[in-house]
């Protein structure tokens, strides 16, 4: 019998709390790193399933790193050199009523270029960049999530940004 019942993941209320706490971040991490093709929703849930199956062996404070490691490995097992394809949301023309068709087309091309540039980024750089700039996660939060230092996070974001900038040079106004 575990000493501290409140810290036992096997207890459903505790597990549910953990699920609600980490599921979104885990999913987003997988999505940004590996794209939508490999079904980040399923993989993230599979990682939680594994956590529950192993609930006796994992303590609460180790739960997060367990989830991220397991989910990552599941993805890697499936990948086999598939190219990551992120989607970008097509801009809704209705939002830009005062824009000319040329502008809209250019915007579309810009976003397509952006998509490719993101796909070409090193996985780690892409994840750090998107978690920070799209999800609004702070550097130290990202560092905690990925098990790296804040300095490394800063470096990855900086490098990612410069690469994007180079790729998108042509669209500079």
């Amino acid at each position: 019998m575990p000493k501290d019942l409140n810290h036992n993941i096997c207890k459903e209320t505790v597990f549910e709390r953990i699920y609600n706490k980490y599921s979104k971040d885990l999913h987003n991490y997988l999505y940004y790193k590996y794209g939508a093709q490999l079904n980040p929703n399923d993989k993230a849930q599979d990682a939680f399933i594994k956590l529950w199956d192993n609930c006796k062996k994992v303590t609460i404070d180790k739960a997060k790193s367990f989830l991220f490691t397991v989910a990552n490995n599941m993805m890697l097992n499936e990948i086999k050199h598939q190219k990551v394809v992120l989607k970008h949301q097509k801009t809704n023309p209705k939002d830009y009523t005062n824009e000319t068709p040329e502008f809209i087309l250019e915007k579309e091309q810009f976003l397509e270029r952006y998509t490719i540039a993101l796909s070409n980024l090193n996985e780690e750089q892409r994840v750090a960049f998107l978690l920070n700039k799209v999800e609004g996660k702070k550097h130290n939060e990202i560092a905690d999530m990925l098990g790296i230092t804040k300095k490394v996070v800063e470096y990855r974001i900086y490098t990612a940004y410069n690469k994007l900038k180079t790729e998108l040079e042509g669209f500079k106004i």
Partner: protein
Amino acid sequence: MDKEYLIEKWLKDELSDAEKEAFKKLDDYQFNMDIIENAKHFKASHFSEINNYNVFKKRYDKQNTPVVKLNWVRPLLKIASVVVITLGIYFTFFFNNLTKVQTLASEKTIIELPDQSQVTLNALSFIKYNKRNWDDNRSLKLDGEAYFKVAKGKKFDIITHDGIVTVVGTQFNVKQRNNYFEVTCFEGVVRVSSDTITRQLMAGDSYRIINNIFSQNKTTSVIPSWTNNISSFEGVTIKEVVAELERQYNIRVTFKNVNTERLFSGGFIHNNLESALISITQPMNMTYELSKSGQVIIHGKKN
């Protein structure tokens, strides 16, 4: 201020007010803003989302029930396979299709072998043979005494502790008791080998090794007398004669004042103990005592 320095700090969200102003004045300020602004188009939640807890739980439960169902099948199969393998090994090595026949004291029996050879077993005797490949290999183990009528065919071997008897279509008697090995041929040819002594016996010949002493004799009988419920002996120790009496009647005999190495020639019947005792003791100048519980004491007369 250095452009790269400003951009670095901007990315870290650590610009001071003065630095913010300088950043806005950079020539690619708009471009920088566009890149970051448009990153929002790639937000994960526009394309993919993780299920909430309730949906997850349903999925988990669904996944787990089939596993639980099979959980008892697997261990059951494991146990079953162990049982099957154990039985397989047992039957291959130990069971081995061996037919065993054992007679008890005062019991005789006749066995027919797969090739129609006949074996008559005397009391307290035991044979073992493989029924399945009998036609290819006629070989049996004998412990005790048996009379054989061997059908013509391939070589027939009787393996005893003290020697091997090999025949091809004959009738002969093999007796193997404690320190007593005797083969008598009644018909045909029998080869007997024990240690270094090998002899070929014709009808009427007998081969004996008693207490490690070899002797050859002749007999005029056509079949061993015990198959007719009479035991007969020619120059055999009282010890051995009484041992046979014990086997035929399922009794124990104790000696008082008797030299059991004395040689006896004669016989006794198998169906009347008193008569048998008289047959043995009288010619040897001995007396006997028969108690109600079946115990027999043989006394030697003092000379």
